[in-house]
């Protein structure tokens, strides 16, 4: 289920004094089964970009394709698109509204027009996918859960639509370190089960740890793209556009400049550790 974006431009409030260009000729493609990170700071256009990927914002025809469907085409089947692309917004727990967790998770599948048995099966499956026990939480009100649990329920609500592509906007925002770790494990699990994942973040640490490939957005344009290692090579330029590379990538550069033999773009703690050990034992 590939995503194909060809020169997407988005202008907010065109023709008014508030006119602003959120996206400028952005092109990208995402393959089936990839785990892709989109990074950029606030106002870089990343949120606008993802709303285009499931037809919430409409583009010109021939610009955004998902799974072969042209999302900009007149009369594009929005339900069909949402069946393919699931979108989890920032702080998704603020969209919960039903009396019970099960009913809330069922909202998406119900809108897809599925039958009751299928919906029930999907709700249970989705709750398990986010690490919740259906028997325990199904009949609870979503409003009596803890913050982290609420967010899981909200994600389950999107997973229950069984999209082949899942897009998450800052899924770990506001969580504490343990909550972040658990959230990332959960997302990795979803990816491992065969879903294409697109994660939006402003933390290089997080995307570096999880994603296969990154798109760095700056002022509505793609500044860099490639594997984390390929992107982190540009550490100075990234810093200038308000993004920071992981601490260990910084250390690797410092050591390289001091004469250590460190591979380019190295950033994982374990890799940096191994490289340092190699240098120290080799030097003796």
């Amino acid at each position, binding site marked *: 289920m590939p995503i194909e974006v060809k020169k997407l431009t988005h202008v907010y409030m065109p023709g008014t004094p508030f006119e602003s260009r959120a996206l400028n000729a952005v092109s990208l493609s995402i393959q089936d089964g990839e785990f892709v990170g989109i990074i950029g700071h606030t106002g870089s256009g990343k949120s606008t970009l993802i*709303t285009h990927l*499931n037809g*919430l914002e409409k583009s010109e025809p021939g610009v955004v394709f998902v799974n072969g469907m042209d999302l900009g085409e007149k009369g594009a089947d929005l*339900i069909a698109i*949402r069946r393919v692309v*699931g*979108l989890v*917004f920032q702080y*998704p727990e*603020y*969209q*919960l*509204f039903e009396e019970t967790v099960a009913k809330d998770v069922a*909202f*998406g599948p*119900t*809108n*897809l027009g599925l039958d009751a048995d299928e919906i029930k099966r999907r709700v249970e499956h989705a709750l398990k996918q986010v690490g919740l026990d259906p028997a325990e939480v199904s009949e609870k009100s979503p*409003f009596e859960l803890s913050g982290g649990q609420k967010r899981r329920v909200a994600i389950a*609500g*999107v997973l229950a*639509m069984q999209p082949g592509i899942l897009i998450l906007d800052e899924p770990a925002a506001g969580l504490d370190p343990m909550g972040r770790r658990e959230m990332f494990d959960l997302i990795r699990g979803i990816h491992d089960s065969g879903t294409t994942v697109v994660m939006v973040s402003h933390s290089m640490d997080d995307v570096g740890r999880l994603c296969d490939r990154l798109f760095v957005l700056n002022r509505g344009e793609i500044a860099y793209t490639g594997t984390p290692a390929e992107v982190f090579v540009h550490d100075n330029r990234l810093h200038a556009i308000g993004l920071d590379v992981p601490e260990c990538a910084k250390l690797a550069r410092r050591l390289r400049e001091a004469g250590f033999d460190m591979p380019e773009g190295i950033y994982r703690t374990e890799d940096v550790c191994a490289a340092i050990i190699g240098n120290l034992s080799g030097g003796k």
Partner: protein
Amino acid sequence: MLKNITLGQYFPGDSFIHRLDPRTKLLATVALIAIVFVAQGFSGFLLIAAFVVACAASTGIHLKFLVRGLKPIMFIIIFTFVLNLFFQTEGRELVHWGFIRITDQGLRMASFMAMRLILLVVSSQLLTLTTSPIALTDGLESLFRPLEVIHFPAHEIAMMMSIALRFIPTLMDEADKIMKAQKARGANFETGNLIQRAKAMVPLLVPLFVGAFRRAEDLALAMDARCYRGGAGRTRMKQLKFGVIDAIAAVAMLLLLAGVIALNKLNLF
């Protein structure tokens, strides 16, 4: 979308009317409404209309905006006009067609009512276009303060109004976000009959209200933390002060009233 709804459509500027004390503008608007009802002939209305147009022109705000503001209430104006036209049966008959009977008196009354409504709307619009919402609430609070003697909660009402103004854009934004999130889950806000559409609003309204309560709790705490304990003993950074221009405005209003009364007496047309 939702963001395009503008409330408290204030146009910043530095004209004579902009610089007036908000209390002056509030009182002048009330006075103008009264004068509109004093007028008994076309000549009077013409004078008032000329006055209002002159005021509007002096503010630098395009007349187009004032006219646009009339659109939402056009229906009411036409309705009032038609009602007065048909149900005033005294006077010389102009048209008689079936059960419809229009007299010269009816036409006159209907035109007067329509003009009163238009002048009323335009002048209150002039008030909101030239006065920032915060100045407006300050003005109201100050004007109603004497009523606190009889336990009228002037400060509390003004505070509520200003908090509402502060949070309208925030809640609009939030509504927009929730709507997008629910649409991503396949919600449909656009089609269906009235009942279906009303039901479709539930996934939008519940989170919006829950969010508003959460914000209200946070805000109450934040206000406590900054030593808020009601209006008693509070001072204001910006003191409202009447100046020379306010006196000029008062004289202008008096002259207008005198003019309208004189025209009534002369009974020109």
